[in-house]
């Protein structure tokens, strides 16, 4: 009886180690139990490309106060829509 329980425990541990190794090591393919969205997580994250910010240049005819008024930094709710 004790040996049977011990055997079951060993099998459970082996299965859990296998599953953890699979999902951490980039799991995917036909044998995967999760959807493609979660499969993508196991791939190495690519660096987010930073687009080059626009360069601004003003001349003597520019209304600097008006240009400054156009500046309006905001954190929008639409920025966080990707989490839904």
């Amino acid at each position, binding site marked *: 009886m004790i040996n049977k*329980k011990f055997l*079951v*425990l060993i099998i*459970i541990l082996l*299965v*859990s180690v296998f*599953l*953890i190794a*699979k*999902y*951490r090591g980039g799991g995917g393919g036909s044998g995967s139990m*999760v959807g493609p*969205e*979660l499969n*993508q*997580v*196991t791939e190495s*994250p690519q660096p*987010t490309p*930073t*687009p080059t*910010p*626009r*360069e*601004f*240049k*003003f*001349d*003597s005819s*520019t209304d*600097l*106060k008006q*240009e*400054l008024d*156009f*500046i*309006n*930094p*905001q*954190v929008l709710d639409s*920025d*966080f829509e*990707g*989490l839904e």
Partner: protein
Amino acid sequence: MKIIIAIFLLTIVFPFTVSAQSFSEEVLDRINQQVCNRFEEDLKKMAAIMEELREREGITETRVAFGGVDTPIKSADYQITYAAEAIAYQRAQKYSSASRLRSTLGVLKGKILQAKEKVSIAL
């Protein structure tokens, strides 16, 4: 026996929760970079305004980054530099909570608005 089954179920569920959290962190990082890009553009515009202002005023001395902010123009330059450093710091941070990210981006927005106020005074 029940304990063994419970442990088994836990080990099945655990990889899923780990994967979900990693996915969320990647999305939060993307959002962080996106907002920082927008803030950086605002800051570049402010820097260009100051550049033009100095040209109009005939100021050619080196910009101040570490103090000596005794004039409105120097104060504005200092605040813009400070905000730019804050954006660079924000870009390097990693978040696992959307509310925490939103909060720190709000603080960053405040620094940019502060820089805008100083530029407005200089103008």
